[in-house]
C-alpha cells in the first residue's frame, strides 16, 4: 500500500495547510469550543442574524425593535464558537480500485488531507468506509496528534465488491450537525439521492466529491470491445465508433450534471475531480473554489 505521510504531508505542504480553515455553513448545536466560527446560531453574545419567529422558539430571543419596525416577530440569532464534526465517507467498492492512477488512491489522499485539515482546525474527524451495505467507521479523532490513526485507518481500507451508498450512509448515526464529505464515483445502483437527503436531515453540510479516472472521463478504446464490469463481472460487447464515443460523452455529462443539479437543489456541494489531478491542485483550487476551505 502507499504511505500517505510521505507522499502528501511533506513539510511545505503541511505549512500551507496550516493556514487553511474549513468553512462550514451550519453552526454546531453542541460542542466545546473549536477554533472555528460555527454557523450554528447559538446563545453567545455575538449577534449573527434574524429569522422569523416560529412556534417553540425561545420568546426571550424576540427582537422587539424589529417587531416595532416591521410589525412581525423576529428572533435574534447569535454566533457561537464551537468545534465541527467532520465525517468522511469513502466508497470502497471495486469500481473505485480502478483507473490510472486509481480513484481509490485519489480518494484516500484527499480524505487524508481533509482529515488533517480538520484535525488541525481542532475539529473532530470520523472516517467511514462504505462497503456493501455496511459502514465501517473509525473512532472520533480529535487533535493533530490523532492524524496517525487516520493514516492507519485509511491504509487498512480494502476496495472490493459492490457498495450501496444509500444503504451504507443511512446506517450512520449522527449525534449532531457537522460536515459530511462523500468520496465516490457514484456508479451505484439506486443513486445517492436517498443518502444525501438523509445526511441533510441529519443536519450535515454535505459535500460530494465525484472521483473519476481519466479512462472514464475520456475512454480511448476502439474496435470490437467486450467490456467487463469490475464489480459485477457483467460483459457487454460493443463496436466502438466515433458516434458511440460521442454518445458516451453525452451520457457522462448527463450523469454528472444530474448529480450536480440535485446537489444544488439540496444545498449540497458537488465537486468532480479526476484521479490524475494532483492533490494540491484539487485542494487548493477545486476545494477553495467550492468554498469548502478558505485560505
Amino acid at each position, binding site marked *: 500500500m502507499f504511505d500517505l505521510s510521505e507522499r502528501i504531508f511533506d513539510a511545505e505542504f503541511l505549512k500551507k495547510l496550516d493556514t487553511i480553515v474549513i468553512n462550514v455553513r451550519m453552526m454546531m448545536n453542541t460542542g466545546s469550543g473549536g477554533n472555528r466560527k460555527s454557523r450554528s446560531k447559538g446563545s453567545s453574545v455575538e449577534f449573527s442574524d434574524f429569522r422569523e419567529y416560529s412556534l417553540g422558539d425561545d420568546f426571550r430571543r424576540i427582537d422587539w425593535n424589529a417587531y416595532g419596525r416591521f410589525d412581525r416577530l423576529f428572533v435574534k440569532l447569535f454566533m457561537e464558537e464551537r468545534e465541527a464534526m467532520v465525517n468522511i465517507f469513502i466508497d470502497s467498492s471495486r469500481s473505485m480500485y480502478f483507473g490510472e492512477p486509481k480513484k481509490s488512491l485519489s480518494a484516500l489522499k484527499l480524505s487524508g488531507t481533509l482529515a488533517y485539515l480538520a484535525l488541525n482546525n481542532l475539529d473532530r474527524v470520523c472516517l467511514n468506509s462504505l462497503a456493501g451495505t455496511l459502514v465501517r467507521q473509525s473512532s472520533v479523532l480529535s487533535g493533530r496528534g490523532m492524524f496517525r490513526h487516520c493514516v492507519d485507518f485509511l491504509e487498512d481500507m480494502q476496495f472490493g465488491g459492490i457498495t450501496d451508498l444509500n444503504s451504507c450512509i443511512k446506517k450512520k448515526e449522527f449525534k449532531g450537525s457537522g460536515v459530511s464529505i462523500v468520496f465516490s464515483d457514484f456508479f451505484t445502483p439506486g443513486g445517492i439521492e436517498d443518502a444525501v437527503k438523509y445526511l441533510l436531515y441529519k443536519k450535515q453540510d454535505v459535500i460530494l466529491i465525484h472521483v473519476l479516472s481519466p479512462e472514464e472521463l475520456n475512454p480511448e478504446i476502439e474496435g470490437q*470491445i467486450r467490456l467487463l464490469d469490475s*464489480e459485477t463481472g457483467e460483459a457487454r460487447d460493443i463496436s466502438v465508433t466515433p458516434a458511440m464515443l460521442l454518445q458516451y460523452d453525452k451520457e457522462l455529462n448527463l450523469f454528472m450534471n444530474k448529480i450536480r443539479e440535485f446537489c444544488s437543489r439540496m444545498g449540497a456541494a458537488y465537486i468532480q475531480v479526476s484521479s490524475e489531478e494532483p492533490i494540491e491542485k484539487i485542494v487548493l483550487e477545486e476545494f477553495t473554489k467550492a468554498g469548502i476551505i478558505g485560505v
Partner: protein
Amino acid sequence: MTLFSPWALWFLSFMPLVVFMYILKQKFEERQISSIYLWQQVLKDIEVNTPWQKLKKNLLLFLQLISILFLVFALSDPYLYTGGGMHSNLVIVIDNTGSMNARYENGTRLAKAKQLAEEMINRSGTKANITLLTVGRSPGVEIGKTTDKGEAISKLRDINPGNFSGNINDSVSLVRAMIKQYEGGDSYKAVFYTDSPVDTEDLNAEVVSLASELVNVSLDYISYSDENGRLTVLVRASNRSNTSLGREISLYGNDKVLDIKNVEIPAGETISVYFEEISADASYIWAELTEKDDLVEDNQVYCILDSAKPKKALLVSVGNVFIEKALSNIEGLELYKTNPDEDSYEGYDLYIFDSAGISQLPESGSVMLINPSPGNGIVEAGAELEGGIADIAAHPLTKYMEDASFAVSKFRKMEVPFWADVLITLDENAAVISGEHRGRKTAVIGFDLHDSDFALTTEYPIFMYNLAAYLVGIDLKGKTTYVCGDAIDLNPNPEAAEVVVKTPEGIGYKLELTYPMLPFDNTGQYGVYELTQRIGETEVVSSFAVNFPAETESASGKPDEVVAQEATEAGNTPGGTRLQELFLGLLLMAAAIEWVVYIRGY
C-alpha cells in the same frame, strides 16, 4: 446480356469467404472497466448481440461485398444487347468528298459522320474486326481488319476534310473485296456514312444519310476575254437552295479588288454575271461571295490570266494523222492544215512541211521539214537510203528518249549543216537534225513517218512535244484550270533542272524529273498554284488554278436523293454496349466510399 469472359464468375466464390472471415474476425478485445453503468446507458438503443446482426450493421463488409461483385462483373466483360446488329466484322465507309464539308447540325457532315462512326465502333463487340475506308477522289483504306478499337478510332479522327469530287459507289466493289477476305463466312456489316445515294447491291449494308437542305450559292465558273488589254470577265453562280438568295460577288485581280456586283439568284437557278472593262494587270483573277453559307468551299473560283497568246502552227501535208495527233494535243498550240498547193505561207509561228515541196519559205516563223524533198532551201537532201534501227543522240530535245527503239525502212540522206545538231542517226547517218538557220529555228526529220514505226512508240509524242516547244520558242501554255483532286500533267520544259510546285497553302513540292513524269496530284486545296522551273540560271514561273468541284459537289447532298438504309441481316447476335468500364467505374466508387467509411469509422 452476355458475358465475354464468364470464367471471371468463379471469383464470386470469394464472397462467402469474405463473409466467413468477417464473422471470424468478430473477436472482441476484452477490457475491464470500473463500471459498465454509463455504457449501458449508451448501448440502450444499440443491440449488437449476435453475429448476424453485427453483419447487418457492418457497412464496410457490405461495401467489400459490393466491390467484389463489381470486380467480378468487370472481369467477366459483360455486354448488354441494345439492338442494331453486332457483327464479327464491321466495314465503315466514310464519304470524304467536297460536299461533306457542308454544314450539318453544329458541325459539318464529315464531323457528324466521324462521330456516328465512332459510336458504331464503340458499340461493336470486343473482338469485332473493323475496317475503315474513306472515299475522296478514289476509295482508300485507312485501316484494315483491326480488333483494336482505339486504333480504329484514332484513324477515324485523323480523317481530314477533302475538297475532292468522288463517288461513294466506287467503294462498293472495294467493300465487297474486303469482305471476301474474312474467314469462315463470319457475319459482317458495312456502314456507309454519306450524303450521296449509294447502291449497296447485295451487301449487308447500312446507309446513314447525312444529306440535308442547305442554304448555298456556289461560284461554278470564271472566264474572261481580252480586248486590247481590257478584260470582260464572266462568273457563273448557282443558287443550290430552295429560296431565292441575294449575294455580293467580288472580283479580284491577284489580291486587289477589281469590282463588286450584287445579284439576286432565284432558287435552283444559275446566272452569269459579267464584269466589264477590267484592267488586266494581274497574273490571275478570282471571284468570291461575300456572304458565308452552308458550304463555303464553293464560294470562290479562280482563273489564270494567260499572258501568252496561243501559238499557231501550219501543217502543209496531204494528210498525216501522226503529225496531226501529236501536235493537236499540245495545249497552247493551234494546228492548222493546208494542202501543199499554196505558193506562200504567212502568219504562223511554225510551219511543218510534210513531204511537201517548198516553193518559197515563209519570211518568219520556225520550220519543220519531214521527209524533205530536194531543193527545200534548208538542207541538202540526197538520195533515199535503206533505213535501220534508230540511234538516239543525247540532246535536250531527245530527253526521256533514252530507251526509244524504232526502225525506219528508208530515209533521205542529209548533209548536216554547220548550224544543226544531230538528234537521231540511222546507221551513222543523220536522220533528224535541229538548229537555228538564219535566225529561224529549224528541225528536219529525214524520213516519212509512215516509213517507220516511230509514231507507234511511246517516245514519239514526247519528241514531237519537245520539238514543237523548241521550234515555237517559249513554254507552251498547258491547261491552267483544274478541279481539286485532278492529277495534273505538268510537262515542264525539258531543259528544266528543277521543278517546284507551291500550293495555295504555301507548301512546296519538288517534283522528281523522271520519265515518264508522274502527274502532280497534291491538288486537295483550291486556289492558285505556282510552278517554278529552274532553267539554267533563270527561273520560269507559271501558275495554274484549282477550283472546288462545284458542279458535282455543290449539288450533292439533297435529302430526297439519299435513302437511309438498315442492314438486311441482323447478324448472329444483336448489338449493344460493353459494360466493363461501367463496372470498373462503380468499383472505384465503392472503393472510395469504403475508404471514407474506414477512415471515419462508421
